[in-house]
């Protein structure tokens, strides 16, 4: 009993739970382990997975970002409209990245320089940016003219769709940034104690702005891939995405109080969200129930995290 408890509450507890759940699901749910379903599953978590990379930094530095869903829709829309207008996909991509980056920078400046609460600021920009997406498209989906644009999501490398490669690349890059760079360590330090970090010479305001700007650009990448996959710019795309991304991060052990984050945890968090949804689809569970299940998973994850930190404190 105690050894089981130690495993579950230890550093790798979530990974163990994930592995066990994975095995059980593989054995009991038909078609789950098929190559087709596995790729489908990974495809379905690409948007969440990509954005979770930067959301992890945002949460680890004690910030919060609700505007990611709107930014994904808006930048996807911008990419489609700009490439339609200019005839150049590259220009479309750059325009999307620019828009995402601007939204993120504005978030960062308002939060870090004007010291407005991150929750309120991004709640505001979430609505403003969604409004922009709707205004720009007059509320309708905008179709893609150049079939080359589809290839961003449809093309495959070694049999695996490009978006999955992109997500994998992001996991590696941001895992490295978190653990091995000054940027990552400073992010964790700010989350641990912002004032002490400031007095230790970390430019806290600039770091926070950078984190939000990066988040915006990463949202643009996700937005472009999403637009390509659904073959159009949709002003209503990715609604509620912010909550899924934050859920995945919290599931992965990122502390909302800041100062604690791990890339492996976030990857597992993303996969748990994806598997839950995938399995419910395979079992033909009605979409309405899926909300309840997702909420329950999040609640359980937070309770587990709480138990883990209590256990950690007793150990210390």
């Amino acid at each position, binding site marked *: 009993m105690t050894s089981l408890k130690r495993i579950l509450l230890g550093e790798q507890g979530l990974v163990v739970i994930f592995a066990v759940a994975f095995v059980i699901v593989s054995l009991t749910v038909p078609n789950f382990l098929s190559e087709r379903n596995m790729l489908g599953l990974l495809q379905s978590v690409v948007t969440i997975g990509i954005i979770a990379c930067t959301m992890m930094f945002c949460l680890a530095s004690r910030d919060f970002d609700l505007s990611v869903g709107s930014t994904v829709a808006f930048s996807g829309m911008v990419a489609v409209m700009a490439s339609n207008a200019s005839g150049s996909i590259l220009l479309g991509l750059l325009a999307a990245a620019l828009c995402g980056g601007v939204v993120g920078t504005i978030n960062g400046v308002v939060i870090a320089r004007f010291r407005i609460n991150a929750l309120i600021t991004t709640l505001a920009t979430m609505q403003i940016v969604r409004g922009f997406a709707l205004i720009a498209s007059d509320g309708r989906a905008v179709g893609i003219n150049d079939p080359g644009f589809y290839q961003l999501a449809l093309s495959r490398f070694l049999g695996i769709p490009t978006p999955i490669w992109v997500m994998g690349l992001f996991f590696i890059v941001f895992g490295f940034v978190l653990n*091995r*760079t*000054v*940027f990552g*360590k*400073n992010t*964790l*330090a700010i989350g*641990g*104690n912002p*004032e*002490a*970090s*400031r*007095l*230790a*010479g*970390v*430019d806290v305001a600039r770091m926070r702005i950078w984190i939000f700007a990066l988040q915006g650009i990463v949202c643009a990448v996700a937005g472009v891939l999403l637009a390509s996959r659904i073959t159009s710019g949709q002003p209503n795309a990715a609604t509620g995405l912010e909550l899924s991304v934050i859920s995945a991060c919290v599931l992965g052990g990122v502390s909302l109080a800041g*100062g*604690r984050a791990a890339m492996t945890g976030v990857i597992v968090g993303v996969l748990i969200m994806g598997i839950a949804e995938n399995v419910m689809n395979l079992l033909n569970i009605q979409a309405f129930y899926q909300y309840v299940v997702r909420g329950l998973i999040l609640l359980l994850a937070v309770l587990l995290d709480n138990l883990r930190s209590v256990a950690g404190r007793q*150990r*210390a």
Partner: protein
Amino acid sequence: MQDFLEFRSISKGYPGVQALSDVSFDVRKGAVHGLMGENGAGKSTLIRVLSGDQSADEGEIRINGEVQHYRSVRDAFHAGVIVIHQELQLVPELTVAENLWLGHFPGKGGVIDRRKLSGVVSEKLAEIGIDVDPTAKVASLSIGERQMVEIAKAVMLDARVIALDEPTSSLSSRESEILFALIDRLRANGTVILYVSHRLDEIFRLCDSLTVLRDGKLAAHHPEISKVTRDQIISEMVGREIANIWGWRGRSFGAERLRVENIAGPKLKVPLSFSVRRGEIVGFFGLIGAGRSEMARLVYGADTRSQGSVSVDGATVPADSPPKSIRAGIVLCPEDRKFDGIVQGRSIEENMTISSRRHFSPLGIINPKKESELADKFIAKLRVRTPSRHQDIVNLSGGNQQKVILGRWLSEEGVKVLIIDEPTRGIDVGAKSEIYEILYGLAEQGMAIVVISSELPEVMGIADRIIVMCEGRLAADLPRAEFDERLILAAALPDIKNSEDLPLSQVQ
């Protein structure tokens, strides 16, 4: 008189550390009992066990002959044991009276009886002689007054045992005197007081009996404090004789290193100017609120300056930016280690290299080998007591945390001016000497050092020159040859006329 509070063979271990082993001692009814020991000696653990926050592995606590089996702070509360921590536990936005009633408001059906709320509190406060307005918000009170309110709360809850953990660490001398008078009255009422402090003067002033802990074991128990001497207690604490904990030695000074001209800020209205030479240690002394820390924060750029300039070796330092100050060679070890110094939840290594890591991180990518070498080097050099550099910094004692903060700056390149605010607050005697030794070493290498301290013996013991501050002004500037306790205190006291009732010798 009979023994009221008894500790019987208390042991408590954490993985890797035996915090307490077989500690037994008794405290008489109505006694103020001192508890001393170096940091890490087990005082905090003992207080935690007493408060019900942690349970002992072995042993028992008896109050009035009854064995206590409490398992939580709440149980201890009901048994009449209340611990007042260094960090006070009041709700700032509620009034004094509301804080005192919190948890059991008087009234019917959830509607609070306002008259009873402040009436009873007024009576109680008057009874124990605390002069605080019950309708004032706690946020508007000074730290000293808040502490009084905490004690009043304990009295209202009919506490039989009150433990005070370093109560005077953030009080001015006057506030301390008021606290001592209150403790005297509680003693007369028969309350047992367990008094944890590093300050020997206070222990002798207040306590009837004393226990000294060392390395989790009972080092000495003195039922009568009148039968021990200071030197004896110090040697019991450290297990060795410390002849002179200051260890000051003469040094020659070089050219002017730090020059501060007419700086002022929102909390420091009167412009200040001073300078420090290479190799010089300048002590800033003053009462709480004299503006010393505000001065330090302005020089370092932690707060926004309204005027003035700072230069190092003749070069002007950009204002209002700690990163720029660091690059110009000015660093600050802040007063409040917990809130402004350490990054909780991160390792010793990360805390130490937070600023210096940019030097071995081409393109922002940290070289982990260099980082760990640097951390290990300063852990060894500063003698930080820890099993590994990966240890979370919150697990270290205050003295070791301070060494890590010092390591943060020693591992930087080109530090020319070190400002250290309250270098040894809450730090034990042994670690104090080590920190002083580090400061002397840095001064000998030509660093200009500013030491801010509320402890006059410390400033007089280690500084080459003392600048006294009083109400935001520079009140005196004395070279070591002219150090005089009475002179310095007289300069530090805001209005000498108002303090006639308080003989100088009693302050500090």
